[in-house]
């Protein structure tokens, strides 16, 4: 049923030959993106997926996915918004409004809105109020208090579900998109305000007219189907922009309730809309996978009259674009095809640099694979379960580049479904766990910022120590085990919601092979190194501006290697409590510009057991061996040297050799690790396999086919 692991031999540059387990049976399929919400105060982007997962991307830190809330089937989100500065709320079809704790990385609370499934949510421009649109046609206003949210009142109930909501920038009016009509109402008087088109009965007795803007149902000449208003946007000049299931983008005058302009842009639904803060451009996403950019341009250069014009279409998606966002410099879109696409607006980008490049984020910026080296086992982490596999083997030998036949296929050993069973409280809120090299100790990063050290015994365990965060500092989660024992591993944190305070959780753990040192890093603070032997904080690596993406401690030397999201790599000597000479050299000289332009973070660092000068690391598109003994490349040298041709003389090879040996054979690469000196395991996840598992896209006639 699964693609068997292929095995081949690859000559890794300068390192001799490896036998490579090319694993393609990690059947990972990311969930489709349902909502995106951009916060311009912190320049962060919240993304929610159809399985309820919420991810936070730091756009200033190279679009690093720095936070992550795992989801649940029962918590599918339909709406996501930032309110009151940097508080994140989501609402979904289970009728609950959820606030996330961005420090502790768990759910702060969930509150039922009592209106049936929630389809839409919008925070007021001031951020102090939250409006949700429900299945039963009600619009509910919540007040955002410092700790929670509080129900304030209901607005007039509409006939059908409220699918989209938008506040007027002044906060006085709200537009609500429903099925076949858009309503605009006054927040203060609670009354619907709009001109009524046909429905006189909806006039409110209090004197304010209820106004609805009826949307043309016509869909490709057929008017049978209902027209669903997927999105509305209220501009400060009173214009309401709506997008609907008939493929239209329509401009309405909210004062008179009249249709001003109509753009038919797609043969399928237009599902999302986002307006820039300056209200000079907006972006819509369609079910055909196209994203259209609209701009407000002046009609002639010498007149002040302006008009909305559809400008560039972008086709970066194959499936429905369910959500779009408009940051000051980029258009962000995501949809069923699971990619998050960030398309910078060239006119807003000052210099042509790395920020001006199109980015397509498909895989999480975390490691989903762990490896037991001696037993040759791989553990795959899925959203709601774990799988354990044994690698296949071969007896054949071959030349460089040959593909070897398998003598024994890979085995699927275990499938563990996530469930909350009895477990100690500290484990229940664990964000990251890590075994020591000899499997005698377990390190747990809990959501309270504390790190637990546990000694494992036959069938039981003993809590050894807790490292508490010091004075507002915090520790936290995720690590990589040297070897896994097959106990219940709750990768899925917490149903509990506690934790107050401002303790930031730790996301990354690393333990030294001799078991003496434990390194932990959070999303923003520096890396803390604890002495396991003495059970105390040993030192803190100076804080750096960009979040840590991978950590590892080298055997023997106990050098801590840290990769940051801006592609910098540091080496820090734990015993000496300072950066190593090599690290200082490379910082002085700087990394190669191509190295800094890579757009996926390094997710895993490991070491060669026999060659202490080598550091192995990889991101989704390359695998690199840094040979510290060789000279560093400067901007003039070729960074990505192809596999050295065997016929070239050693002299040339030596002259062109530099510290970075990069192989791009395997991509997208989710995991790569050295099993032993001569064996590598590479876990690939070809994009075609993911696309094959997605629902079929809307069929479009292609010319010439």
């Amino acid at each position, binding site marked *: 049923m699964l693609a068997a692991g292929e095995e081949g031999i690859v000559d890794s540059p300068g390192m001799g030959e490896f036998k490579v387990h090319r694993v393609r049976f990690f059947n990972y399929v990311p969930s489709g993106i349902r909502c995106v919400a951009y916060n311009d105060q912190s320049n962060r982007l919240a993304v929610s997926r159809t399985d309820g997962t919420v991810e936070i991307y730091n756009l200033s830190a190279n679009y690093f996915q720095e936070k992550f809330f795992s989801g649940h089937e029962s918590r599918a989100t339909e709406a996501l918004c930032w309110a009151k500065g940097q508080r994140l709320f989501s609402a979904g079809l289970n009728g609950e409004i959820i606030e996330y704790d961005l420090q502790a990385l768990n759910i702060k609370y969930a509150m039922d809105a009592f209106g049936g499934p929630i389809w839409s949510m919008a925070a007021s421009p001031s951020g102090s109020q939250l409006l949700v649109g429900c299945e039963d046609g009600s619009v509910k206003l919540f007040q955002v208090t410092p700790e929670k949210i509080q129900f304030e009142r209901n607005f007039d109930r509409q006939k059908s579900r409220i699918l989209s909501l938008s506040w007027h920038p002044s906060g006085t009016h709200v537009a609500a998109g429903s099925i076949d009509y858009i309503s605009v109402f006054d927040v203060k008087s609670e009354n619907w305000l709009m001109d009524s088109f046909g429905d006189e009965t909806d006039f409110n007795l209090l004197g304010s007219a209820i106004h609805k803007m009826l949307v043309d149902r016509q869909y490709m000449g057929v008017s049978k189907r209902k027209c669903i208003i997927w999105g509305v946007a209220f501009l400060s000049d009173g214009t309401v922009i709506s997008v609907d299931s008939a493929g239209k983008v329509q401009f309405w005058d909210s004062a008179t309730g009249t249709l001003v302009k109509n*753009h038919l*842009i797609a*043969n399928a639904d237009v599902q999302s809309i986002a307006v820039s803060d300056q209200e000079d451009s907006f972006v819509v996403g369609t079910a055909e996978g196209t994203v259209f950019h609209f701009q407000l341009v*002046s009609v*002639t250069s*010498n007149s002040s009259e302006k008009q909305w014009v*559809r*400008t560039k*279409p972008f086709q970066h998606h194959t499936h429905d674009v369910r959500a779009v966002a408009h940051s000051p410099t980029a258009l962000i879109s995501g949809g069923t095809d699971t990619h998050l696409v960030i398309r910078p607006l060239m*006119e807003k980008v000052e210099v042509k640099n790395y920020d001006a490049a199109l980015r397509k984020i498909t895989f999480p910026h975390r490691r989903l694979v762990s490896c037991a080296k001696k037993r040759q086992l791989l553990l795959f982490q899925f959203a709601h379960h774990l799988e354990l596999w044994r690698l296949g083997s071969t007896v054949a030998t071959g030349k460089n580049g040959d593909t070897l036949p398998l003598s024994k296929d890979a085995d699927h050993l275990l499938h563990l479904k996530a469930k909350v069973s009895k477990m100690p409280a500290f484990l229940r809120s664990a964000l990251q766990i890590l075994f020591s090299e000899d499997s005698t100790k377990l390190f747990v990063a809990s959501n309270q910022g504390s790190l637990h050290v546990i000694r494992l015994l036959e069938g039981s365990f003993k809590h050894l120590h807790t490292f508490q965060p010091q004075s507002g500092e915090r520790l936290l989660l995720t690590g990589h085990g040297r070897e896994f024992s097959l106990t219940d591993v709750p990768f899925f944190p917490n149903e509990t919601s506690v934790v107050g305070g401002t303790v930031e959780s730790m996301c990354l753990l690393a333990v030294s092979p001799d078991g003496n040192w434990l390194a932990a890093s959070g999303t923003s603070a520096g890396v803390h190194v604890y002495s396991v032997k003495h059970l105390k904080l040993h030192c803190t690596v100076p804080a750096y501006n960009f979040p840590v993406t991978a950590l590892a401690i080298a055997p023997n030397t106990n050098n801590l290697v840290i990769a940051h999201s801006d592609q910098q790599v540091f080496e820090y000597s734990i015993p000496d409590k300072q950066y190593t000479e090599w690290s200082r050299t490379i910082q002085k000289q700087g990394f190669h510009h191509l190295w800094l332009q890579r757009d996926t973070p390094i997710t895993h660092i490991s070491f060669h057991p026999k060659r202490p000068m080598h550091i192995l690391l990889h991101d989704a598109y390359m695998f690199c061996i840094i040979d510290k003994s060789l000279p560093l490349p400067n901007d003039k040298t070729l960074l990505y040297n192809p596999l050295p041709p065997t016929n070239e003389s050693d002299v040339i090879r030596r002259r062109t050799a530099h510290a970075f040996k990069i192989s791009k054979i395997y991509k997208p690469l989710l995991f790569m690790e050295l099993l032993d000196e001569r064996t590598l395991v590479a876990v690939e996840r070809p994009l075609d396999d993911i696309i094959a598992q997605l629902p079929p896209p809307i069929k479009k006639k292609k010319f010439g086919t």
Partner: protein
Amino acid sequence: MVEEEKNLRVVRCGGSELNFRRAVFSADSKYIFCVSGDFIKVYSTATEECVHILQGHRQLVTGIQLNPNNHLQLYSCSFDGTIKLWDYIDGILIKTFIVGRKLHALFTLACAEDSVFVIINKEKPDIFQLVSLKLPRSSSQEIEAKELSFVLDYINQSPKCIAFGNEGQYVAAVRDFYLSVYFFKKKTTSRFTLSSSRNKKHAKNNFTCVACHPKEDCIATGHKDGKIRLWRNFDDEKKYTYTCLHWHHDLVMDLAFSVTGSSLLSGGRESVLVEWREATEKNKEFLPRLGAAIVHISVSPAGDLFCTSHSDNKIIIIHRNLEASAVIQGLVKDSNIFTGLMIDPRTKALVLNGKPGHLQFYSLQSDKQLYNLDIIQQEYINDYGLIQIELTKAAFGCYGSWLATVEQRQEKETELELQMKLWMYNKKTQGFVLNTKINMPHEDHITDLCFCNAEKSENPTLVTASRDGHFKVWILTDDSDIYRKAVGWTCDFVGSYHKYQATNCCFSEDGSLLAVSFEEIVTIWDSETWELKCTFCQRAGKIRHLCFGRLTCSKYLLGATENGILCCWNLLSCALEWSAKLSVRVMEPDPNSENVAAVSQSPVGSDLFVFKPSEPRPLYIQKNISREEVQWGVFVPRDVPESFTSEAYQWLNRSQFYFLTKSQSLLTFSTTSPEEKLTPTSKQLLAEESLPTTPFYFILGKHRQQQQDEKLNKALENELVQLPLTENIPAISELLQTPAHVLPSASFLCSMFVNSLLLSTKTESAEEVPDDADMEEEKESDDSDEENNFTEEVQDTNTTDLGEDIIHQLSKSEEKELRKLRKVDYSWIAAL
């Protein structure tokens, strides 16, 4: 090109490209102008007729534009370095501005009153500049205009790549991969470049054309990959933005905005006019099946008409609601000419390959296509690399009552598809009707076919010669069955000669002999018995042309070979009469005389020799008639014989020789100067014909002439004082027939005009016919008193107030009459 004193010159005789530049509409959409070689043609949009030919340029006309300050005038520019201003209604050249440089295109702007924009090239041949040219004001006919000011450099020479926008505030130019916009006020140029990388996606990003929105700051550009980009915000090089419209699958050939800017028109090789409403992708309308690739699109200033120029030399006028209303078709030059030039004996039209699969009948006199005959009768698929069925041979027989055509298609060496069709002229439908279709008449290519055109031959006979070594004789036989009476063609005789390929065939004038050439050998067959009479063999290479002499020279047979030998055999003595070394490309006998024209090819050019077979000395030689190779030639009988006395030109007396060069320009010989030749057929004022029936119209004499006879009796009885016929009054005809721009001021004219109308001098003369100027009165004719009063008043004013004035301006005869008038006794009025 004037070669000799007596002005026998090679001239272009029409058939020029009508689609060389965008056609231009007059302001009222009544006329459409298009460049045609050295001329500008004025067509009526309603009737498709050519109203005027504006001639005066000495080289290719490269641009025309209406004068923005006087929409009754037209500017044109040409390679001859002049800009001419025309009054197109009268076909008069008003002014000539001499620039002295090759002008490639012309643009006018309403806001730039005294200047125009032209494209010139610098020293290097492919560097073109857009410059503004100041047209000096002067009353003289020829003015030098040298004041050039540079606008844009390195532009494309095609005027499609330049567009002026927003009332002339900026000009957009495209070339290769970039768009440049020059702002006249700011005097800055913005340049936007598209990615031109070699990868597949952007390989065809090249710009092909540009158009500017008439109201908004929006530039539309067409691209090689079929995309249309709409650029906005281009005054800011950073904030510019564009959107794409994509329907065309091949390059966008031209773009045009409607007058209001509400829709954008585009066209290309698909032969479909696309109208993008509101410039949105989803809202588009099509006018499909226009026949050939759309090369240019233009829009009338009134907004009610569009027109498209097509690659098959055709202009289609299209209504605003996308309905084609008129087609102006010139000589189609789209495809290869295989059939050669023929003359349809009935219409005297030139017949040759037209649209793919069609024969076109082209009238040389009116320079327009008469009609198309669809020979292949299959849908033409316009795509690269497709091997199409080609119409390769055609011949008229029996004075135009039969037409034989041969079509072939050869995909591979061994797969030849061959079809011969015989068409009969149907007098009822005035057209050719397919009579017989013969599949695979021969095993290999048909090299020649000819009808027996002898007067006495009772049965139509056709001979085909083929590379398969045979020639076949086809005759018309009775094909009647119980259902209908019919005739059909069947093969009567198959002849061959030692398995040589048959290359040419030819009947003698009286039809008694058939000559068939088999490679190097000419065989003579008796057409009665199909018996081989004799053979001629000169061993001078394969025979390329073969023809019998005519009239007094019918005893001679002429053959031209590939090796450059022209032989003349005497059929009576069966011996070679003479031979000459001449590399003959075209050999055409004149049907009305003994003359034969031969065109030979030399490295310098083509030379024409006219000779009689009986005399080895040519009648006439003209060297270097064309620099290119002459491919086909034909003698066209004259309707009215000329009478050249000079011996050298006598050959032109009864026929005219037309020839077609490799680049498909149709040329002929003319003795008259171009100004005399092709004079506009009607010098009449158009205004007279198209006047609506207003009171003014009644004043003009036409109407009265019509009613003359009816009213004659009655009017005579009444003996009324009548207005004179306007034809006879110089003042009126002068006023109405002089172009507006040369008339004196209206105040000056008014009195003269009124006076001339008031003159009732002619009433005295007995032959004067009454008219209906008093029609209204006549309707209620019982009240005759009023009429009389009226006429009296008229005469009073006439004689008293304006008398003095008139006298000075009247002709002598009128003065005489006026004097008589004064003496007339009006006392009878008092009696009433």
